[in-house]
């Protein structure tokens, strides 16, 4: 019997070693360990043995069962690893073939710039204010210290609907609305939107464009605060190294007034195509709110002061993206829109 067992062991291990598929392994398991298997048959014959022999033979038989089982398990693992390896190799693909892109659209470049600007000002505590585009003469001019027949009206050729209703020529019109709505200071708002001037379309002019207006009114607001605010904005918008420069200017609704340049974000001030060799780019107009404008909105100019600023969104977008023709912004050609 011992011999028989040894033989089973040898032949099982040999055959298992030669097995090359999981199916074959299963067959061998049945052949040796199954209900009708060879080892099972031997164990069934144990009844004929003497009680002295039984434990020893039993032990040998169990050892054989265990080693065969272990061998099957090892072999199985090896085979499935080989199989996986084989499968992975056969599944290799060409990763350089074209992607299946998700078709998503983009915001218009002007909207992207506007959102970025609003985001910066919101983070500085400015509410986003709105006002009508079809505006009255009062809000667009008179309340901004620009009475009828004021020569400053010349610089903004205005579209009129009636004698008294016009298309706003500047987002500054929202200043007065904002002060009226707030009732009393503190006021801290920006207002982006469309404005209109009677300029024929060319590479640098458009009868409709976008501005962003800002207004702060409170006790003890200084021109230094205006500078600090615009400096913070410019650094966030154009990079941490951006410097700003104030030049005296004139707007009827601010006094003192300034035009503001930023150091060129392309060349850092050395002079390049974007800044036309100047090193500086003019981006906005600003100033301290004129006392007449405050009075007009019911705010006491002796108790409060404030500053206002306005900038062209097209101008900033065109500089930021190096767009050389304003008309592209309203043509909506996908070959253009896809670039932003």
């Amino acid at each position, binding site marked *: 019997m011992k011999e028989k067992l040894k033989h089973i062991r040898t032949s099982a291990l040999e055959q298992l070693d030669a097995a090359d598929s999981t199916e074959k392994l299963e067959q061998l398991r049945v052949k040796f360990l199954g209900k009708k298997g060879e080892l099972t048959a031997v164990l069934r014959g144990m009844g004929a043995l003497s009680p002295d022999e039984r434990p020893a033979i039993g032990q040998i038989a169990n050892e054989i069962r265990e080693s065969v089982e272990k061998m099957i398990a090892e072999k199985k693992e090896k085979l499935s690893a080989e199989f996986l390896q084989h499968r992975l190799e056969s599944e290799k693909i060409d990763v350089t073939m074209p992607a299946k892109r998700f078709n998503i*659209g983009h915001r218009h470049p002007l909207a992207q710039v506007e959102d970025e600007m609003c985001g910066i000002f919101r983070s500085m505590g400015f509410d986003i204010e709105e006002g009508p585009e079809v505006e009255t003469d009062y809000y667009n001019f008179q309340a901004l210290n620009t009475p009828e027949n004021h020569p400053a009206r010349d610089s903004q050729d205005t579209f009129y609907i009636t004698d008294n209703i016009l298309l706003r020529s500047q987002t500054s019109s929202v200043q007065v609305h904002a002060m009226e709505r707030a009732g009393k200071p503190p006021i801290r708002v920006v207002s982006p939107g469309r404005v209109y001037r009677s300029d024929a379309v060319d590479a640098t002019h458009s009868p409709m464009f976008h501005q962003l207006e800002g207004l702060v009114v409170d006790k003890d607001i200084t021109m230094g605060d205006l500078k600090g605010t615009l400096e913070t904005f410019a650094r966030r918008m154009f990079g941490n190294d951006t410097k700003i420069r104030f030049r005296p200017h004139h707007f009827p609704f601010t006094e003192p007034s300034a035009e503001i340049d930023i150091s060129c974000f392309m060349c850092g001030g050395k002079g390049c195509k974007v800044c036309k060799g100047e090193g500086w780019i003019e981006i906005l107009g600003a100033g301290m709110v004129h006392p007449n404008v405050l009075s007009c909105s019911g705010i006491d100019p002796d108790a409060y002061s404030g500053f206002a600023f306005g900038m062209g969104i097209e101008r900033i977008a065109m500089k930021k993206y190096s767009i050389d023709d304003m008309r592209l912004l309203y043509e909506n*050609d996908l070959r253009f829109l896809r670039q932003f």
Partner: protein
Amino acid sequence: MNLPISWLNEFVDVKDIDIKNYCDRMTDTGSKVEGWSVQAGDIENVCVGKIISVEQHPDADRLVICSVDVGEEKSRQIVTAATNVYAGAYVPVAKAPAKVAGGVSIKSGKLRGAVSDGMFCSVAELGLTLHDMPYAVEDGILILNDDPTLGDYKPGDDIKEILKLSDNIVEFEITPNRPDCLSVIGMARETAASFERTAKYHTPVLRAEDKNDNVRKYLSVTVKNSTLCPRYTAKVIKNVKIAPSPLWMRMRLHAAGVRPINNIVDITNYVMLEYGQPMHAFDYACLDGNAIVVREADEGEKFRSLDDIDHTLSAGMLVIADEKKPVALAGVMGGANSEIKDTTSIVVFESANFMGSSVRITSRALGMRTESSGRFEKGLDSEMTRIAIERACELAELLGAGDVVDGIIDVRAGEKPEAAVKFEPDRINRFLGTNIPEDRMVSILESLLFRVNDGTVYVPSWRDDVRCMNDIAEEIIRIWGYNEINSTNFRSGVKTGEYTPRKAYSLRLNNLLCSLGCWETCSFSFISPKYYDKIRMPNNDPRRKSVVIRNPLGEDTSVMRTVLLPSVLESLAHNNNSHAEDTALYETASVYLPAEDKTLQPSEPLQTAIAFYGGDFYTMKGIIETVLDDAGVLNYRTASKSNDPTYHPGRCAEIILSDKSPVAVFGELHPLTARNYGFDMPVYAAVIDTEKLASIACFDRTYKQIPRYPAVSRDFAFLCNADTEAGSIEEVIRRAGGKLVEKIDLFDVFRGEKLGAGKKSLAFNVSLRSSDHTLTDDEADKAAEKILHAVENELGFKLREM
């Protein structure tokens, strides 16, 4: 404003200041420099030459060979076709290699075999005109010795020196609040303050007034409206000899961009440029009577201006008139009837002050924008009329243009009161955020010719723009330096900035539409009324009533749009024409809906229009439903819409809210609409009432328990009519099944002969679920039964027999 630096130097010496530094500092102190140029900078190596001999070219009838002394050891040979040259003439010679006006290079060469070592120049080749050089001939060489007003010159002298063509000219952008800076003296004041220098101002001196004659023998002046004409000053010049003015005056005018005419007219322009005071000169002989009246025109009064254009005046326009007729339109232009002519022998100089807004209204109404009106309308200083007219008379004497008659007519309502502003140095520093010492403030103000005395700042008469603390602060800080202000943060408390709800929703909608594959566009708010035709809007549609622009750039941009769709379709068509593949575009913007009352502003609700090609109706429906889902709008109905001519009548739907108001319309474009835009494929469009959606959008969400009990699913295939809307059956299923109905999926639409003509089968999978227990078969069956009954009773459809 073009400022010749040599002219400025007469009042304040800046010869030692580099031109670039000059420009930078002037910009920093508030006189913005647009640019500067070297006069005649393109002309090189052109000098005075004296023609020694002129000989016929042996091989060319039309050429002569000249020998010319150009101040070199040897004379030069120059060949020319000009016919006005002669031996002894002094001419400008471009000594090859040289450059003439426009940067044209002159090189040595041979003309028909004869060497020519340069070129003689005409006025044009020096960048000048016959107005600048009235003694020259039009198509010939400039003969220098024909002009008696040139100084001394000799062969070899630089022509730019001789013709006073070597100046630096600075171009300033002067803001409308500073008309005083539209003059050499005004810029001298600014220059002096900017560079802390002292300017010398000239007091005109009249030498040889004929004391036996007096202006009152010639003229009386009456001002009828002293508000419109606060001051009128006049003087008379007799024995006038009209001639070209001398070279130095002509070249100053040329440098400043003014065309020389004759001595009298040039003097008025010269004084205007120097003092900023527009002047006028009349021919005395053309006056009817000797009484000048400054009065308002009669309605319909006729006036022919200097440029020979006839105008019909309106009441209220101010004119300068004699006894019978207007001779000048006050502050705008003189009349043709009293123009200075070559025969003029007595001249009246006028130096007056007119109210800015009146001049502005008149010049606008008549479409006459002149140098004079542009200055008056900004508001000029009434104190300067007298010094200006005296300067004009002084120049008339200097030029020998005539004899100044003694006496002056000076009609004015009274002296202009001196404006005063409280001097508040501490407040100014607080306001600016600076620490400028008080004495520095005073010295800055004084450098600008303000007086500071006893806590009061007295404003010079030419500074009507300075009336309050802010104005004084600006004067101080612009000279002190805007860039000396330290940046600070205002002290208002911490807060976050918020969007308006409408803006916040529109931002969210924009981002959603982009994520759905639509590209944002931006188009003009004004459109052509033809846009309404293109989308086939009915003639009686109220949306055809637009806000109309009274002065549009053109018909294309003449009305404010009431609908957004046509603009988006134009953009889509543009991309289709450039062969863009499947394309989806949208725009969210205001539309402008006129108020009933024309004197009120329109409402400006937000709208969104979407358009694409390369999908189908259900793609658009998917976009719309996604938008509604995102906005938290759950209660709405989709109804077919066949009465909007923009869309295909069988492929258009609208979304109706529970309050029965529509919030969106979408569908396939009517083939005729599509054709209007050149589309030959189906195009899908949608218009969303974004204003409405923003007002009902709800972003509050409450957690509902994830289902714990299994769902039971039942399929129903109904045999119905070919035109039955799936939605109508869904609605009945949902109602009949009640709250057990979790989901309804239409999974099959079948048409076939088996079903019979005009029939189709719609198969739905209905998922039933209870939130609090597992549905029993019995319950599910009962629900299914109810659904079947309801569909049969309400719609008449039975289950399709398999």
